[in-house]
């Protein structure tokens, strides 16, 4: 078994497999559990180098041990050979009787040596016979098992002249005068051995015999193996130390790299934050979970007139305008209790007494559990906007009030004029001549026009202010159009125009204020009639894509120049008349129609080719349920 290990270098192969296996294990563990790249190529090469070194060193130390043993055994062999030579070994013949005193002397010497040197298992001499066969000459009884007793055939003395059959080339070599050592274990009837052979010479210097010393092959191999294993173990320790230090080093390096990265990122974000906070054109502040101010940026200080130190904790509240403070603090409390966004527009009053309007928006900072860690907020100076807004509101209010007052105030004199004319006209105050009647007619027409204008202005004002009521109900547009179609035909016939409808069947319903949509239809149709001298007016309904319905009124009138298209739906804009005929409109009809349609979430539009006619349309969303 030991021999097999040694001869196939199994010790090294096991060592190598363990080394590579261990390295692979560490390699994959690092990759899997630490997310690291594992052993690099150089590391693998170092492991291979260590393994090769282990191989070379183990081989060498095995050889060394083998040589040492060989020297030692050979040394014994030379000594014994010399001793026996001096005793006169050459006188012993193949036929010397076992009682021969010289022979017995040599035997007892052998026994003595073997006892004295436990490493030597057996000492014996060979002689070559005439026929070339090799025979054993002096071979004492041997206590192989070292139990102090000579027992059995194996341990007993060998007869003089017993032929030895396991002759190997090295033994032959010894007969030729060369000391030799056979390190390949040989098995004979006494056991397995490695042997040293030394030539013995007679007085004339001829090789007369060969002395052999046996050494237990097992012990021999074991001794070599131990040396090798000691060395491999040493190398294993070296490799383990290498693995260990490499891994620790790598782990440390990763940790250091990570720490460096984090530190660098921290530094960067700190710089970024400082740059942002100091240069931002808005005030920035931070609060903690107790709603205490912990940080404000320079712009905040500039806006509030407080220093960071003064703003800390509850200090920031003193900069809120006294009139707004209570409300802002309530809003702040509400937002922070529900961990919601805080958004407020309020005034700041600096200690120097300067008042500014501020848009104050703050978002909660939440930890992983959703708990508030405070707020981060920004302040924007909106004073200019607030002033502008107030001005706009003032102007709008004034405009609304002005139009309302003027319109209402106009109503009383209009009533009086209208009624006075009516009284004159119907003869209540006495008969009138034709000329007087004509002028009264003109006056009456213009009072009516004035009335329409006042009504339109008020209506437009109401629509614009969102004060107009809409009574929304579900209708079929085609049905409504058919209801008022007769009126349109009459209107058209007055100018000898044709009015026709092209209504798409199966139109989806719409939710509308019927009266207001009719007002839009009348407005569009009236316009079409007004600007058309001959031809026809066509009212169409169509299904549009995306669930919209289109109602269009097409005329064959004078059309509109592109440049004037944009002005059409604006209030009080009447486009310059092409034929120099005043049409007598209020300039509000289309603007009112546009507002009405937009209140229905629809839109109005116009397509026109100058000289060929125009198509005004409005688009309403279909009703899809409430």
């Amino acid at each position, binding site marked *: 078994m030991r021999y097999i290990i040694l001869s196939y270098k199994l010790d090294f192969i096991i060592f190598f497999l363990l080394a590579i296996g261990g390295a692979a294990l560490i390699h994959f563990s690092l990759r899997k559990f630490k997310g690291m790249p594992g052993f690099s190529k150089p590391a693998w090469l170092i492991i291979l180098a260590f393994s090769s070194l282990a191989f070379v060193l183990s081989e060498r130390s095995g050889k060394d041990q083998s040589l040492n043993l060989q020297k030692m055994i050979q040394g014994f062999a030379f000594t014994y050979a010399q001793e026996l030579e001096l005793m006169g070994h050459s006188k012993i013949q193949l036929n010397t009787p076992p009682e021969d005193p010289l022979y017995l002397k040599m035997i007892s010497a052998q026994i003595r040596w073997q006892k004295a040197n436990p490493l030597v298992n057996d000492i014996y001499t060979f002689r070559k016979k005439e026929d070339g066969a090799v025979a054993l000459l002096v071979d004492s009884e041997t206590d192989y098992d070292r139990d102090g007793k000579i027992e059995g055939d194996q341990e007993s003395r060998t007869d003089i002249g017993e032929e030895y059959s396991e002759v190997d080339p090295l033994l032959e070599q010894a007969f030729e005068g060369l000391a030799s050592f056979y390190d390949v274990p040989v098995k004979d009837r006494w056991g397995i051995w490695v042997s040293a052979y030394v030539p013995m010479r007679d007085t004339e210097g001829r090789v007369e015999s060969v002395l052999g010393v046996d050494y237990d092959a097992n012990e021999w191999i074991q001794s070599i193996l131990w040396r090798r294993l000691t060395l491999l173990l040493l190398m294993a320790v070296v490799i383990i130390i290498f693995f260990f230090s490499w891994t620790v080093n790598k782990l440390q390096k990763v940790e250091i790299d990570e720490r460096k990265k984090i530190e660098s990122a921290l530094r960067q974000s700190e710089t970024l934050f400082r740059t942002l906070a100091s240069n931002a054109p808005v005030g920035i502040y931070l609060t903690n979970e107790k709603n205490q101010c912990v940080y404000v940026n320079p712009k905040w200080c500039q806006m509030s007139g407080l220093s960071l130190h003064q703003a800390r904790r509850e200090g920031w509240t003193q900069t809120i305008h006294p009139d707004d403070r209570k409300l802002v603090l309530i809003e702040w409390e509400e937002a922070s209790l529900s961990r919601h966004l805080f958004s407020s527009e309020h005034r700041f009053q600096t200690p120097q007494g300067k008042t500014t309007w501020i848009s104050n928006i703050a978002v909660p900072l939440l930890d992983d559990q959703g708990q508030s860690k405070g707020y981060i907020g920004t302040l924007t100076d909106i004073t200019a906007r607030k002033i502008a807004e107030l001005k706009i509101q003032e102007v709008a209010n004034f405009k609304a009030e002005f139009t*309302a007052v003027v319109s*209402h*105030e106009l*109503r*009383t004199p209009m*009533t009086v004029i209208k*009624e006075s004319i009516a009284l004159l006209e119907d003869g*209540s105050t006495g008969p009138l001549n034709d000329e007087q009647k004509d002028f009264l007619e003109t006056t009456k027409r213009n009072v009516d026009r004035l009335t329409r204008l006042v009504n339109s202005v008020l209506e437009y004002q109401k629509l614009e202010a969102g004060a107009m009521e809409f009574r929304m109900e579900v209708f079929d547009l085609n049905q409504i159009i058919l209801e008022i179609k007769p009126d349109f035909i009459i209107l058209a016939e007055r100018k000898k125009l044709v009015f026709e409808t092209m209504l798409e069947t199966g139109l989806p319903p719409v939710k509308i204020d019927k009266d207001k949509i009719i007002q839009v239809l009348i407005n569009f149709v009236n316009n079409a009639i007004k600007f058309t001298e001959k031809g026809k007016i066509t009212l169409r309904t169509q299904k549009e894509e995306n669930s919209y319905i289109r109602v269009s009124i097409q005329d064959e009138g004078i059309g509109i120049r592109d440049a004037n298209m944009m002005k059409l739906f604006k209030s009080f804009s009447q486009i310059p008349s092409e034929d120099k005929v005043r049409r007598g409109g209020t300039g509000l009809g289309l603007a009112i129609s546009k507002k009405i349609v937009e209140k229905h979430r629809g839109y109005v539009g116009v397509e026109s080719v100058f000289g060929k006619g125009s198509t005004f349309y409005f688009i309403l969303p279909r009703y899809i349920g409430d």
Partner: protein
Amino acid sequence: MPKKILLAEDEPDILKVVRYRLIKKGYEVISAANGKEAITLIEEHMPDLILADVKMPLMGGIEILKFIKENANLKHIPILFITASSELLKQESRDQLLNEDVFLKPIEMEKLTTRIQELLTS
């Protein structure tokens, strides 16, 4: 015996033309320049119909309405309103009134006289 109409209107010119028209139609017209005056005259003359401006000094048309509705002897008297702006009617009073009982200035006299006739003949 002509029917009596109480006309409460603070604008003298309106009062003048409406009064003229109503007299022409054959009614007896009692004029009041404001609500206060109207109330005194209502109790005194027991008109068959009241025509009042909504907005007048001292007391407006709505107050006249309230007054006659609270008075058992008077609450049967129909009342019509003249106004420059329908917004002047408060929501509560608007709910109590029929659309055809409110006349926006400029008054369409034809409609007004027709309505008066309707109310007085029924």
